[in-house]
């Protein structure tokens, strides 16, 4: 049963964890060549970038006082060439980085998606689908830029810092110390604000996901909302969720934006200190032997200090981005870490072509610990036998059917087909041979033909149509505007429940299963059609094992064996005649229907 709804945050216990970045790094590693390329390009750019103030310094300190116009122009042109070189290199780097970023996102999304395909019903049943969607799409998009550029940029900024440090030291070691003095203040600020930053960003991610989940559900359930005139109330709830999102968004932003002013203030403090110390403490270093104040040197130092704080400010931004990415990565990895509850055993073998012998050996099953749904069920079914499952709703009929395809693992006991324990065979080889018609006939967007072909992808149009004919869906399909190529919409909006079931039926038929399972498959099909459908598949069913859950006793009666399920146990089992003779629960059920019919008969007289 579900554990999460739209207004419940999916809390994470995991602490701030570098491990996650290690994992994220795996995605980056695949493009290590490109990343290395970006890195090299960037190093060159940085070195070139450092040349610029030097050129300026030469021009101002030497060529202008020397009145050497030729050199001023030459160096000016050099400066331009350096700049254009930088721009072109940057462009090249961006080109790579966009590719890398998009590739990482695409890979990561593929991984999540592939993992989602392995997750069992329980995963999907236990949370709003909008929340899963947000992770696959939005969160993954949000980490792209950071993963492509964040790591490199961080390293580069550090390197940049060290380069500048080197140049500063070369220019004036004493002033360099002054510049460095501002650093600890900034680090202290980061350490103090970190826990709050992280919390707000996590909250924000949570609230976003809640909002999307609620929106998605309301889009899908709009008709129900309207039918119950709940629009206003839901609007209120949505506004509430939006408000929460806004609150935490702004809180995160207040702190995040605080980073820059902090560094800007420190930077200015440092600048002031450079002038003051340069003039009052280290004045001897700045007066040339002929008594002229060496302006170029001190302006260069100021420029270097700005350049030194530049990377620090940018590292601050990267850090903000990192916190965001962290919040998203945690959610993404949470999906990837979701254990696959039903998976192939390590030594699983392919199930060979089966005859259709089924055995339930003392099966205990519970969805939730301590609440058994099936209590030690055992039975044998011979190949080709048809079994009807009857009993009150929620007694465990659908569960038996779900276990047959191993949609869930048995808690205790075993399910065997042709003597193979289902836990020991590969899921694919098993499910390929089962034809399951679920209660909820899901229709994909596409065409009706596509939906039928879902049963067997290599089926020709003729085969699809033949299947539709067999279940008597052909007639209504041909009636539609574009026949088999009529577009179906998400969930088959516009088709009636009965029509959806017929398409679903054709789909199952096309898959040509060895064991056929019909779970309330025809409940919404009108009786005439159902009768025809059953005639159509009766021949096909011959020789195949089948399990049928139905409420119409006329359908049930013709099965080889009827099992009456009650409260997770097989209360009765036998042919119709046998069960009628034993005058138990089935007898009671049958007689009540019979009595209804007698009423009808009497009224008719």
């Amino acid at each position, binding site marked *: 049963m579900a554990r999460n709804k739209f207004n419940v945050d999916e809390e994470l216990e995991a602490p701030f964890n570098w491990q996650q970045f290690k994992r994220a790094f795996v995605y980056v590693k695949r493009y290590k060549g490109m990343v290395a390329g970006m890195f090299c390009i960037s190093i060159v750019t940085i070195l070139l970038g450092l040349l610029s103030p030097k050129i300026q310094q030469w021009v101002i300190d030497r060529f202008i006082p020397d009145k050497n116009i030729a050199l001023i122009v030459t160096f000016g042109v050099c400066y331009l060439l350096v700049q254009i070189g930088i721009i072109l290199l940057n462009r090249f780097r961006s080109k790579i980085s966009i590719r890398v970023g998009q590739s990482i996102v695409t890979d990561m999304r593929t991984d999540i998606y592939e993992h989602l395909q392995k997750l069992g019903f329980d995963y999907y049943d236990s949370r709003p689908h909008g929340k899963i969607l947000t992770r696959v799409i939005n969160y993954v998009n949000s980490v792209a830029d950071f993963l492509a550029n964040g790591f490199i940029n961080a390293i580069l900024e550090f390197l940049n810092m060290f380069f500048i440090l080197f140049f500063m030291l070369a220019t004036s070691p004493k002033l360099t110390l002054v510049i460095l003095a501002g650093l600890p203040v900034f680090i202290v600020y980061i350490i103090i604000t970190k826990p709050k930053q992280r919390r707000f960003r996590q909250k924000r991610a949570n609230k976003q996901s809640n909002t999307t989940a609620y929106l998605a*559900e309301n889009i899908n359930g709009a008709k129900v909302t309207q039918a119950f005139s709940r629009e206003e109330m839901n609007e209120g709830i949505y506004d509430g969720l939006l408000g929460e999102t806004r609150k935490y968004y702004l809180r995160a932003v207040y702190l995040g934006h605080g980073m820059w002013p902090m560094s800007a203030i420190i930077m200015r403090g440092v600048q002031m200190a450079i002038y003051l110390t340069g003039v009052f403490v280290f004045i001897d270093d700045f007066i040339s032997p002929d008594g002229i104040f060496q302006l170029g040197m001190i302006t260069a130092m100021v420029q270097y200090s700005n350049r030194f704080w530049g990377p620090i400010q940018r590292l601050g931004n990267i850090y903000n981005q990192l916190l965001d990415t962290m919040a998203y990565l945690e959610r993404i990895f949470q999906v990837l870490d979701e254990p696959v509850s039903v998976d192939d055993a390590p030594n699983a073998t392919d199930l060979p072509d089966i005859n259709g012998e089924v055995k339930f050996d003392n099966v205990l099953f519970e969805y939730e610990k301590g609440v058994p749904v099936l209590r030690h069920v055992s039975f044998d079914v011979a190949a080709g036998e048809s079994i009807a499952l009857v009993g009150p709703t929620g007694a465990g009929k659908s569960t038996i059917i779900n276990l047959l395809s191993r949609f869930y693992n048995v808690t205790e006991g075993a399910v065997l087909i042709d003597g193979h324990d289902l836990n020991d065979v590969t899921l694919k080889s098993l499910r390929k041979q089962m034809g399951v018609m679920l209660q909820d006939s899901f229709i994909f967007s596409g065409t009706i033909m596509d939906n039928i072909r879902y049963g067997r992808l290599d089926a020709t149009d003729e085969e699809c149509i033949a299947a539709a004919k067999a279940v008597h869906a052909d007639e209504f399909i041909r*009636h539609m505007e574009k026949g088999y190529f009529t577009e179906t919409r998400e969930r088959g909006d516009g088709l009636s429940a009965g029509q959806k079931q017929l398409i679903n039926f054709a789909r199952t038929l096309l898959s040509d299963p060895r064991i056929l399972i019909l779970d309330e498959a025809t409940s919404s099909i009108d009786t005439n059609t159902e009768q025809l459908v059953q005639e159509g598949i009766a021949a096909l069913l011959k020789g195949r094992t089948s399990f049928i859950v139905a409420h119409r006793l006329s359908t049930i009666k013709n099965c080889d064996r009827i099992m009456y399920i009650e409260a997770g146990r097989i209360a009765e089992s036998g042919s119709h005649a046998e069960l009628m003779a034993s005058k138990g629960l089935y007898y009671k059920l049958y007689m009540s229907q019979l009595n209804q019919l007698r009423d009808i008969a009497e009224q008719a007289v």
Partner: protein
Amino acid sequence: MTFKWAYGWMGNYKWRLVLSIVLNILGVVAMTAEPFIFSAIVDDVLMPQQFDKLLPMLCSAIGVGCIFIACRYFQAILGEQAAQAAVYNVRSALFKNLMKQSGGFYATNRSGDLINKCSSDVEMMNHFICWVTPKWVEMVLMLVAALIVFFRINWQYTLILFAVTPFSAIVGAKLAKSVRPAFADAREQLSRLNTVVQENISGNRVVKAFVREDYEIEKFQKENQEYKRLNIQANMIWLKYGPIIDSIASVMTVMNLIVGGVMVVLDQITLGDLTLFLSLAWALNEPMILVGQLVNDTQRFLASAEKVMGLYYTKTDIEQPIKDSTPETAKGEIEFKDVSLSYGSLKVLDHVDLHINPGETIGIMGPTGSGKTSLVSLIPRFIDVSSGEVMLDGVNVKNYNLQKLRSRVGMTMQDVFLFSDTVESNIVYGVPDLPMEKVVEAAKVADADGFISQMPDGYDTIVGERGTGLSGGQKQRISLARAIAKGAPVLILDDTTSAVDMETETAIQKALGELETQATTLIIAQRVSSVMHADRIIILDDGKIVEQGSHNELMALKGYYYNTCILQHGVMEEEVSA
């Protein structure tokens, strides 16, 4: 137009944006003033070595710096607040509009697309208001400020410098033109990707049952890779023009250096002037570089805003009447007068006439696709008639206030939709303040109390989206309880007990009959047992009422109903006679 629309959503928060922009201007002024002070420090303090003036001048520099920083910080915060207000209001308005839309709208719009419009497209508005807008103002002001300062120092020099700006403008315009469609394509693809994933998630049972994981992955990969391609393509456009704009900006810097240097040599400006020029160079450079980015982001915003606006201005095809003529009392009398309904060329209902008395129970049967659901959907106006009239208590449903109309109709739908919330919340969906006894009562009538109480958390159990995790019969019964809890004078049960066993069904029917206030009830079903006790049964075929009457009358008619009855009970009938 689009801009005005977007800004309009800020409401009173627009003053914060205005303040933010004012602070931005102040910030630019402070930022421009800073180099002046430093240039004065060079010229008046350092060069003449009059160091006693250094400290006061530095202090004023820092003061100005702090003003600049404070402006920037509060500008950012105020901008974010204003943008968040707009985002909040737009999202809220979009949601309201979504709640008004009819089934036709939801059938033609992919849900992934709708979600995208409400989330990431609106997000672009946020970025536009709080970042792009102030940056535009800042850029223009910076250019103007720099221009004034440069002109005052030396106008010839300035003219030479500014000779390159038109080139930037031309490239910027080109960028604007080509970038928007590229981003629109990428967004469109995102919504396609969204839809594939969403369908995969909600259809996960079918995917597993048919072992189609590989096929689904393939399908997904196609969209995923295409999204990647389009994203890269959209970004590459920026890379095509961005560097040109950047290069033009650096030409300006170089000219600054060369022209300035030469002018100092020729004694037309002082070295201090040149330092000033050089330190103000960013004021020219930044806007020049920024213009590309701003154009890019503005176009992205426009691409998104158009989508958002499209959704916001979508009219619903089921409209509120101009005048609310909802009658005071609700009795539950329904009348279909010559009602026809068609979807395009497909005729669904064909001149249906039907009068239903208050408190009457009507059973509706007919072949798959004969128009049963369409017929009942006309009453709460989920669809509107193509011709004819549907009357509730003597008033055309089109003249009812929609909410009041729908509050008088309790309905269960074929495709049961439960919200991922507790069982209780689902049952009280229509009447949120219903006391618990009433909830249990409704559940008992729907024969759902038994299994609900057996669940570990009882009525507080959270059911999955669409009620996943519950059996079909359980879902149907919760949905029935939900409709009953509403206590409406008209109750429509569309295929509500198809997955419920017959005994339970009988119990439900009995309980429904014993309800204090007898609602007018319409029951759509395929099972004879579901409708046989109805006061009247109608048989729809191909959009027409072909048979009508009580069970006995229809049995005597020996038509569709009789045949169905025989088919369903035929086997037993043999035994009755045996």
